[in-house]
């Protein structure tokens, strides 16, 4: 019996990857907090994660066609532009910038914590697998 990593690791592998990508998007927002005309962006984590896990959502992703069941379908890994949404600013600014630095900092800190949580779940899965392999 083969070990299926995707079955063993569940949602956590994709969640960790997405947390990773989200952190760089929020980092872009913080970096551009003084850039005139820059619009703060983010994505709907739950929706994108569902899409990645193949559990519904809109399935307009680009994937390689697989003609044999032994082919590996290469799903796109990045966050495409249509997944990225714009933040609604609480306060309009004169230079057209919609970055709220406090909000972005909070989002980044929260994302870092959730990244740690995903990591711990994933690490637990691996520890479990190693235990199972050793048969201890």
């Amino acid at each position, binding site marked *: 019996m083969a070990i299926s990593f995707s079955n063993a690791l569940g949602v956590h592998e994709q969640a*960790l990857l997405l947390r*990773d*990508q989200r*952190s*760089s*998007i*929020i*980092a*872009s927002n*913080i*970096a*551009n*907090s*003084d*850039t*005139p005309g*820059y619009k703060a*962006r983010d994505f709907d984590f739950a929706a994108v994660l569902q899409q990645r896990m193949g559990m519904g959502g809109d399935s307009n992703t680009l994937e390689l066609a697989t003609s044999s069941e032994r082919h590996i379908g290469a799903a*796109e*890994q*990045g*966050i*495409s*532009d249509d997944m*990225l949404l714009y933040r609604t600013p609480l306060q309009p600014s004169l230079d057209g910038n919609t970055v709220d*630095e406090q909000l972005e*900092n909070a989002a*980044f*800190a929260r994302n*870092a914590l959730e*990244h*740690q949580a995903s*990591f711990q779940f*994933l*690490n637990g899965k*691996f*520890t479990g697998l*190693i235990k199972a392999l050793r048969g201890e």
Partner: protein
Amino acid sequence: MSLMSIFDISGSAMSAQTIRLNTTASNMANANSAAGNADDVYRARYPVFSSVQAAVAANNSDPFAMSMDGMMPASEQGVKVMGMMESEAPLQPRYEPEHPLADEDGYVFYPNVNVVEEMTNMISSSRSFQANVDVMDAAKTMMQRVLSLGQ
């Protein structure tokens, strides 16, 4: 990997904020540099920021390698200084006939630097710099954690 690009993104922002801090220092230093005619006077200058793709900001000129890496460059925006802008505010002519640079009417021209404005600019840029340092630090911690996966 996306966490890696945070170093490029925050790094570009830190360098842009440093340039802003530098111009503030230059404006403050020259706040009292008088000149004999309006054309030679120092004028307050400010950097103009614009967002740029993170890989470009980091001088990584291989977009193909980036898309192979699985990340979408469109979502990762660094900062660059597009150019410098000179302030259009009116200069300050002062009547100082004893001044060695005074013109025939006894006027010298002082720069249009508003010191209070420069102070707020200084605080703003150092705060933004700090925010980016924090982001970079958090990204470093996240990465170190990921590196310990399975151990």
